[in-house]
């Protein structure tokens, strides 16, 4: 019995070690898989009992995931920062959920990039966060522990990368795509996704985003923007009633994407929203420390820029009365 098992385990270890070393030699780095289970484990940390320092929660889309390193921001701000942004989605369902959660007493940094029929707060943009929230509210007692265990494993082992699974490799062979290359994106603990744009054809990538943004739905009218601000203000009030606050941030965009967004959501409309909404509304172009950052592909920050941006944003937030007033009395 043990000779069979000994040989089997030895073969597995040799195979796994070979893949791990070969993949690292080809430039692959460990990356955590973002799942509703992992997101829920982070969401749970946003709940804090009375007497414990309340966190700053970051909600938004991929721009926040690639642009904000929660661990670095936590060091800058001296309080826990939890990144709950989700790729390709609107943060509005999460803001609403945080507002309704009596055990959440922290402050929220909420990304807003455009006012259009495409987002924020549309069925399409809300579907992914709603799926994540459904998982969060119906998960089992064990799922947070399991998610943390997987996060630890995936953050250390390259062989946990989906693209290195035998299925993907075989699929690659079928597609005659034999050269599996490391992705320019990965995810590290804290749900931060550093992007290395030196690994891809940046011009092509910019064209991709330009194409994606050229299909944005029609803009909202001023009346619709005001109605949206009123709706959101109700959630802000709920969060404020527990000692927290909300800061809305128009995130950095550059090149053609910025041109489209500025046309889509004119400055006057942002000002209208900012004047109406409860909470603080920041446009990155209004903040000296933020306005010179450039999104490498037009929409997202490169990892070399994300660090300085995170620090600058953290310091900016510390300077806001809304944030400093809710600052933790004791460090996390």
């Amino acid at each position, binding site marked *: *019995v043990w000779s*069979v*098992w000994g040989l089997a385990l030895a073969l597995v270890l040799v*195979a*796994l070690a070979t893949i791990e070393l070969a993949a690292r030699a080809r430039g692959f780095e460990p990356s955590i898989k973002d799942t509703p289970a992992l997101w829920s484990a982070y969401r749970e940390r946003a709940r804090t009992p009375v007497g414990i320092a309340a966190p700053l929660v970051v909600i938004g889309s991929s721009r926040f995931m690639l642009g904000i390193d929660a661990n670095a921001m936590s060091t800058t701000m001296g309080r826990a920062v939890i990144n709950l942004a989700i790729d390709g989605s609107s943060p509005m369902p999460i803001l609403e959920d945080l507002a309704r959660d009596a055990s959440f007493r922290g402050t929220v940094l909420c990304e807003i990039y455009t006012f259009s029929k495409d987002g924020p707060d549309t069925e399409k943009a809300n579907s992914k966060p709603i799926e994540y929230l459904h998982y969060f509210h*119906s998960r*089992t*007692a064990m799922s947070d522990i*399991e998610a943390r265990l997987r996060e630890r494993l995936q953050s250390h082992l390259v062989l946990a990368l989906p693209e290195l*699974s035998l299925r993907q490799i075989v699929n690659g062979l079928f597609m005659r795509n034999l050269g599996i290359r490391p992705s320019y994106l990965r995810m590290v603990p804290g749900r931060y996704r550093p992007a290395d744009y030196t690994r891809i054809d940046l011009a092509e990538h910019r064209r991709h985003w330009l194409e994606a943004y050229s299909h944005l739905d029609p803009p909202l009218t001023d009346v619709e923007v005001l109605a949206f601000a009123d709706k959101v203000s109700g959630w802000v009030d709920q969060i404020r009633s527990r000692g927290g606050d909300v800061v809305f941030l128009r995130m950095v965009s550059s090149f053609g994407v910025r041109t489209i967004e500025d046309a889509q959501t004119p400055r006057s409309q942002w000002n209208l929203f900012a004047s109406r909404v409860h909470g603080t509304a920041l446009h990155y172009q209004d903040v000296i420390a933020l306005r010179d950052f450039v999104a490498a592909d037009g929409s997202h920050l490169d990892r070399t820029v994300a660090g300085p941006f995170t620090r600058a944003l953290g310091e900016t937030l510390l300077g806001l009365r809304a944030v400093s007033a809710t600052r933790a009395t004791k460090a996390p």
Partner: protein
Amino acid sequence: MVFNSIGFFIFFAIVLGIHQLPLSWRAKKINLVVSSSLFYAAWNPFFLALLWISILVDWQIATRMNSFRPEVRKRMLFVSLAVNLGALSIFKYGDFITQNVAWILRYVGLEYRPSPFGIMLPVGISFYTFETLSYTIDVYRGEEKPWKSFLDFAVFLTFFPHLVAGPIVRPADFLPQCDQPRRASHAQLGWGLTLLTMGLFQKTVVADGTLAPVVDRVFHASSLVGFADAWCGALAFAGQIFCDFAGYSLCAVGVALCFGFLLPDNFNSPYAALGFSDFWQRWHISLSSWLRDYLYVPLGGNRVGRVRTYFNLGLTMLLGGLWHGASWTFVAWGGLHGAFLITERLLRRRGHTSSDKSFPLVWVGTTFVLTTVAWVFFRSNTFQQASSLILAMAGVQRASLFRIVGHKEFVEVLAIVAIMLALQWHVRDRQLSDVVARIPRPALAVILAAMIFLIVTDEAPDRAFIYFQF
């Protein structure tokens, strides 16, 4: 906590480690009860109370039952049935019952709009309810004496390998094992780990990684599917549900064996069955034998005339379908199997008894195809979804072959199902342990290594075992 999780392996290693310590047998049983309770509480601590209510009520009733007159004993059995089936009705069938009452009232002109119960289904309730009921019923019938040790009874019901999705263990099979200290021999430990590996491979790599994505796509787009799509989806689900549930059962038997306990086999090459009566002796054996012993036989079985036998068969299968879930699609699935069984009985009465021996592959093929058609109702959420797929499978809905599934996936599904059928045919009259024992050791080591490698590196998203929802 599911078998295909890192948390489970840490839990398993700790509990097995304690079980191997030089402790008294009583201390080891306490370890099993406490750790099994933690295992169950990992889903929802509240539902642990429900499990323990069943344990305490049935223990008290069965222990005292024999000292009372027959009328009182009958009432005590009724209390046990009411407590267990009452909890099952509320938690599993509450919404289903109220929705159907509302539907009937609306049919007669009365408007009734019940609010949904919104109760979460306690995992494994259908399984442990049947296990605990079999104990009180056996004691009531005088087939079993009340067991002397409450600790043993608690081990029987809570033992984590079979707690949430079976096999449905009978007290007569399990309780005597609690009498003497049990510790797995090296051979048992090795075989237990082999079964665990095989079960996880079936679940993670075949069911979740390969078949489930195809099933999800086809059933999600049921109104758009072509002929080949529909067959591909149905065949993929036939493979998925087997690999998912038989995989779970292998894990359960393997994990139990690592502690020195023997659990009954739950599957025995069901897709190599020669007809439906053979199928139900090979598929979810612990449930079909439970339904036979506690429902079909008490109804009169086949001793009460031909028509009544068919009625008993049909009713048993309908209730068996309902056991799987609170939906009429499950009842339809059970009804279809009831109809298949009745038809097979009729055929056999008319002299077709030897045809399964003369044309075994025809019987196997027919049984498998009809079983696959019935699975469509099992997997569908609504009759509309099921009928779309059935019509597409019959080729009457759409002219196109492929609209949802790619050619590569189609070939992949066909290949997996063909391999599955061939393997089941190959081992249908043999024990799995005998088949594995004939594999040369180096080859077995390589097979195990390949399975572990694929389990570890598979990137399929996590899915709960299908039978957890029942």
